[in-house]
């Protein structure tokens, strides 16, 4: 098994594109190493991208934020300004695993592991995050909701990797939140995840909104109907009920050892509502 730690995207892309056998990108390693140890994966080549500066930087850019694909959850938490702008995204990244895991896990890895239950992905999708992808044909931008196609299936081509994420500028009166359901208080994979981001209009009603659900389908969903259900409201009781119904309607989960179809669908509505209420509270405070 080869290990390479290139210092530029050019080299990284060439290594990945030119690999004969299975080649994997290494950022935090919190999924890759586990899968290797369990003999699920046996890569011929590991490409560690952490020496490439863009993957490790958190910078303000054009009013928004550019977050490197290999920035850890713990590091995200240490940026006070990012936490203030996108508390939901930062919280979501810091729900992954444990304190130890958050010391290594990255947004790039969490997305590219291809699990519909990934904690940071609904928050990123709700935020309208865009993945900046480098590859043999150069760089392209992909909305995060279009990166995962199904369990362990990405829309990335051979030789491509995510360099960073761009979070759009945050208008005043905006708030986001991410909640997940797990049976314990920590350490579980999300049985349901809900990310909500919204902005209030001049009249204090919900204007633009995005709702994303995790672990209720073969990929993380963007649910426009759920956002629509809240639009123009102050999230009063009827709006909450509409939101819950729309969230539930979008679910197409499976029965597995972590949850049943019935349970996930029911709780998806509850979490969408609860996350929206927190996002609303935050928007009002901004």
């Amino acid at each position, binding site marked *: 098994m080869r290990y390479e730690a290139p210092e530029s995207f050019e080299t990284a892309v060439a290594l990945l594109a030119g690999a004969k056998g299975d080649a994997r990108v290494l950022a935090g390693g919190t999924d890759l190493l586990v899968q290797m140890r*369990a003999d699920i994966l046996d890569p011929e080549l590991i490409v560690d991208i952490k020496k490439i500066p863009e993957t490790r930087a958190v910078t303000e850019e054009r009013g928004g934020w550019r977050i490197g694909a290999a920035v850890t959850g713990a590091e995200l938490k240490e940026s006070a300004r990012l936490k203030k702008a996108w508390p939901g995204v930062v919280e979501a990244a810091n729900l992954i695993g444990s304190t130890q895991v958050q010391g290594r896990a990255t947004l790039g890895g969490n997305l590219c592991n291809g699990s519909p239950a990934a904690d940071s992905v609904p928050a990123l999708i709700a935020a309208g995050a865009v993945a900046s992808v480098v590859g043999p044909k150069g760089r392209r931008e992909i909305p995060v909701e279009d990166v995962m196609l199904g369990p362990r299936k990405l829309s990335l081509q051979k030789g491509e990797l995510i360099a960073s994420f761009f979070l759009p500028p945050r208008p005043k009166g905006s708030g986001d939140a991410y909640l997940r359901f797990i*049976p*314990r208080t920590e350490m579980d994979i999300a049985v349901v995840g809900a990310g909500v981001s919204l902005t209030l209009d001049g009249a204090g009603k919900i204007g633009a909104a995005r709702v994303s659900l995790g672990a209720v389908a073969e990929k993380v969903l963007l649910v426009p109907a759920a956002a629509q259900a809240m639009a123009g409201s102050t999230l009063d009781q009827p709006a909450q009920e509409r939101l819950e119904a729309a969230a539930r309607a979008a679910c197409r989960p499976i029965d597995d050892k972590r949850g049943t179809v019935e*349970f996930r669908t029911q709780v998806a509505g509850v979490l969408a509502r*609860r996350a929206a209420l927190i996002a609303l509270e935050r928007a009002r405070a901004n």
Partner: protein
Amino acid sequence: MAETLTTARDLPQTYVGTRTVRPDGVDKVTGRARFGADFNLPGQLVGRVLRSPHAHARVVSIDTSKAEQLPGVKAVVTRADFADQPSEFIPAGEMMINYKDMVRNIMAREKVLYEGHPVAAVAATSTAVAKRAIKLIEVKYEVLPHVIDVVAAMKPDAPLLHDDLYTVGVEPKPDKPSNVAKRIEISQGDIEAGFAKADLIVEREFNTAAVHQGYIEPHAALASVSEDGSAEVWCTTQGHYIVRAHCARLLGLDIGKVRVTASEIGGGFGGKTVVYLEPLAVALSKKAKRPVKMVMSREEVFKCSGPTSGANVRVKLGATKSGQFVAAFAELKYQAGAFQGSPVQPGVMCAFAPYDIENVKVIGYDVVSNRPKVAAYRAPGAPISEFAVESVVDEIAKKLEIDPVELRLQNAAREGTKAAYGPKFGPIGLVDTLHAVEKTNHYTTPLEPWQGRGVASGFWFNIGGETCASLTVNEDGTVSLMAGTPDIGGLRASLAMVAADELGVPYEKVRPIIGDTGSLGFNFLTGGSRSTFSGSMAVVEAARQIKADLCRRAAKLWEMPVEQVTFENGHVKPVEGASGKGKPMSVADMAKLAGKTGGPIGGYGRINAQGAAPSFGTHLVDLEVDPETGRVTILRYTVAQDAGKAVHPSYVEGQFQGGAAQGIGWALNEEYVYGADGRLQNAGFLDYRMPVASDLPMIDAIIVEVPNPRHPYGVRGIGETPIVPPMAAIANAIEQATGVRFTELPMSPPKILKALRERGVNGRGNGKTHG
């Protein structure tokens, strides 16, 4: 509560009952202590096991030739390397095992009976080579239908695991084999008549899932066999003498030629009272002529080492309207896994033990199924049966509108009560624990909507057993203490305290170690809540010998008859009004004269400890249910349990808290999840959900002391009882919070939410707990 730490003090000083710093503590907080996988020998090989991917299959052929030819592979073993064993039952802790089953469990012979069942093992120069070698072993399986569920396994058309297993305990004797290994029954009085007297009868059926002991340290063993057939084994175990006996038997070695050292043990809870890797490591080392080290992965621990039984339990309890229990019936069906030997017997014994009931009948079935063979798990069998009984008791309390603690007090077993399983109780502390709980602030704190409070009691009988301890007085007056049962959580501290008090020497001058099997006579394993109970008795006996010996030596020195010399407050001295004179001498003083007075000073206690007494406990829990998600949050927890005499209160509290935590996991989230293919789906800590620090509140521990009259200090074993009450206490609290009685474990969120919705129980909850 006030905690006084003990430091070096002048005599007189007694230690039993104080909170000393444990002597093995520094090594454990610095990483110096060596656990099973921490020991290495030069030239050692890595051992790995090839395990069955099938839940049930005939092993048609095994071809290891390619593996043997791989460079770096030094030995391969299969069923061919283990002689078959005749059927013979032997005790192992509180369970019975059979060598014919054991030789098949450590290495499959005719069949594989569970996913993970070992089929072959290799020893190679590196992990990478060992892994490759495993992949090169070719096994032909004839896959057979499998059965996982205990009720399904009892059906006449169920897939049959053993064609020579005929149910014991039924009349007439069955003429066809089945998966039911035995049927047992205890009874007293006349339950028909009893139920006829009842004003209220509650009958319920319960189902529990298999749960694992969950020790953080995987099984590990390092074996080194010499050309003359002597073997040394280093392993993590609760019973190194048991490991020695099993390895000797299975490999055809003399017991005296096998020397086992118990490493520090990273948790056992009963799961390390049996062998898995040790005989394989010995067999491989015998072939390779090099040391072989084997460590289980976490996945192997879950798949291949015994969890406890899952079960189906029916309980029927009858009471008068004033709350007196008049008749009690239970039928227990316990899974044993691939080979017989579930803890259904203790389950049957313990079911109604906390109560004084005239008419009792309990029936139990031991049923095999295609799962790993179960191993003991803390009070084996009792948590399951008592979960069911304590839930029904609670239901009776609610229906009769009697406070659940009062109802238990009314029916509680006391001194002189005859338990349905046989013995009459001596002094016991159930009533005391019930009163202790009633008096707490916890018991009367008001609850909010969606919160509930539950109480449950529990019992374990505890055991004594063969135990040896040696005390040696060194030339400088320090005392070396050697015990023979692995220290799983503070034993060395407790034994050192007893030795210090017996001999009147400072605690810091007693250095305890756990000896290897070559150093002491046979010791039964650490389990059955016996190590402090029995170990302290052996230490008392060793100390008694020393004291008698010191008196003889002093008598000679002082030229007095020995009857006129006594040992008191750490000193030999003439008795009051003795004919001669002599200055009192401490143990240290006498140590200086050891050579002159006959040689080294020591005592060796070798006993079969009798007089183990039961420990009763009562638990109280407050919890909150989120009605929109079914999530349960434990808000508050109190344990009151009778320790007889708490030698080291901190470690007694620790047992209460640890057992309660395991019970909480068992109640809420832990379970073995099988697919239709008979394979375990959650063989890791991610999806086998044990409580984490943020799941639990502080656990208040109340030590009740009703001394055990048959122990020199009044000690009762206490380690197992704490896991018995939590599941019922939690089920009872959930019932109060939601109005729904759950009879299936675990009471996980999807089940709770489904039940609430089906019953039209709605609400937004308290809004305190999200997600």
